[in-house]
């Protein structure tokens, strides 16, 4: 994974739990005390080790850490200079979700070794849809739950998510059945 992801993990820990906790987690993950470079490629193990260490140090299950990270990621990327890119993906939640692959294709130009997940939308209504999530990396579905929470904030809607694992068919994947309602003050999603 690119350093940008690990930087975001670091940002999450530092902002929520402080520098000392980050040092503990970093040390436990066996990483040196040096900053991540956004554009540098790191072994996926680095990120998994960080999540594992965070889980041990914070005493929270790995799934909870991933979900929290997903939530943080939507805000972090916007602040890390990719806000316009996210804006270009859509002005509403369904539009954004439909354009996720398109956005990743654009990002891949800057991060040529990026192996992004793939998303597709089905069963769309005015207040619900099914999001299909395909990834070569195992166990990251909780991260998507966090991402959806973050997008709820972005588009000012309350989202209810029901996750399922689809093992049948040509390509096993995770799917998320979403229903949303606009928050107060939001004319529509």
């Amino acid at each position, binding site marked *: 994974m690119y350093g940008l992801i690990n930087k975001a993990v670091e940002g999450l820990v530092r902002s929520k739990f402080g520098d000392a906790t980050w040092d503990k987690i970093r040390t436990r993950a066996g990483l040196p005390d040096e900053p991540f470079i956004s554009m540098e490629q790191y072994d996926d193990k680095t990120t998994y080790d960080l999540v594992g260490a965070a889980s041990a140090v914070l005493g929270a299950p790995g799934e909870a850490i991933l979900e929290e990270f997903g939530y943080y990621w939507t805000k972090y990327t916007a602040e890390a200079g990719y806000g*316009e890119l996210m804006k270009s993906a859509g002005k509403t939640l369904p539009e954004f979700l439909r354009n996720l692959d398109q956005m990743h294709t654009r990002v891949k130009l*800057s991060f040529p070794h990026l192996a992004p997940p793939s998303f597709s939308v089905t069963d769309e209504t005015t207040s619900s849809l099914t999001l299909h999530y395909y990834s070569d990396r195992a166990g990251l579905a909780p991260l998507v739950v966090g991402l959806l929470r973050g997008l709820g904030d972005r588009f000012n809607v309350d989202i209810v998510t029901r996750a399922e694992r689809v093992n049948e068919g040509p390509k096993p994947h995770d799917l998320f059945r979403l229903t949303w309602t606009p928050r107060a003050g939001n004319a529509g999603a």
Partner: protein
Amino acid sequence: MSGGNAKDSESDAQLVGELFPFSISFDGAMRVTAVGARWATFAPTVRVGESFLDHFDIERPTEVRTCDDIRRHTADVFVMVLKSRPDFKLRGQFVAREGTLKFVGGPWITRISDLPRFGLELSDFPPHDPRGDFLVLLQTQESTLADLKSLAARLRATGAKMEAEMKLREQFEAQARQSQKLEAVARLAGGIAHDFNNILMAVQGYVALSLSRIPPGDPVRAWVEEIRKAGDRAADLTRQLLAYSRQQVLRPSALDLAREMREFEKLLRSLIGERIRLTVVCDEGLGFVWADGTAINQIVMNLSLNARDAMPGGGELEIRLRARSDMPNATVDADGFIELSVRDTGIGMDAATRARAFEPFFTTKEVGKGSGLGLAQVYGLVEQCHGAIEVESEPGRGSLFRVLLPRIKSVEPVAPALVQHAAGGRGERLLLVEDEPLVRKLLEQLLSRAGYQVSSSGDPHDALAIAEREAPFDAVVTDVVMAGMTGPEFAVKLEELRGRVPTIFMSGHTEDEFIRSGSLGTHQRYMPKPFSPADLLAKVRELLDG
């Protein structure tokens, strides 16, 4: 033109307008004939029928104004400025087609963060337009640059930290080297002083015996007096050497430094002379240090005399006492520290002189003006008091010596004053143990002549045998440093054999901690060599009289 063709043409124009949302077409009169889809919301005045030149300036290529000019440059990149918004530029090329010229291009923006400023979004660049990707790429590059800047700043900070640590380490190493050097010199000085004291002891003793036999008025008496004075000066030097080598016997007690300074101030004033203005400042409630008053006076005197010599034309000397919470390399458990500082406005020292200031025999004074032992003695005494000394000095800016002494937590009772006793024996039996034949012979004669019965030996084991064999002795006079058994060890064995015996320990080189720490028994005394015959006789008498 058929209706179908007109429809196709209109459809093509619409397609171009969608694919290139910022496109503009105009005819030979430079009247706008079609505009891209985004103009309607971005700049509605740019519309069909308007004059192209009313809305745009062509910045590049230069000197291009007419349709013919444009046609000649269709292979070139054009940069155009929107007149109603001069900070907004378009970049693209012109395509000539059937009497019309069509601008195909888009906003010239190089930072993704500039988009909101122009009311634009990344989606204003259609997927086929590489400028959208280009902006994302540039943003990534910018983020990477920010990462590298942060990394460089961190490296700089780490470098500065390492540099500071290395500097500190070098200072510690230099300090350690200096301490080792001073330690080695101190050991050498101590060894020399020990042997020298034994010789001096004999010289001074025989001089005293000679003087007792030479009648007043005899010219030889004056010569012997001169020998005595030379011996006294030599004894003084060895005392300073011993102080430097931290082997001077101290009698520490709970000392009120402020009181000590106030009492010493008067003597100090007379020593430094009238051309130097002396100020003594003592903070209140400083508490006590565990130190030898004489040693403290020696420290202050030596520092003050050095200051005086550094101000031959007069100046200011300030002695200050204040509390301090820390001391570098402190090795004792102390209730804070007391700083005794001596500051002068004299000639000061350069770095080379500062580095050697505490070395024995190092002096910047003229030959014969200084022994080079003053500061060395101060150093030794301060170390012996478990203190530390710091020096600050620059040529022409005076010097500041700071002596730091550990403050004690409680005050011990003060030792009772000594009582003077009349010297001379009344036939009491003394056991003398001294391995230096020259000194042993002198003391034997001295004590016998004073009225004591003396048994002597150069070997402590042999002396124990004598003690076992003969009747109990009234007192013992023993050297401290002897081969095979030290004086204190001998005293312990003797007391195991014969019970408590008044004992005098003599030494020119006190290595035994129990003597240096001042923990002698009430029936024991210590005499640093060299001493005068009268001093020894007085001490023996005092001990016997209890």
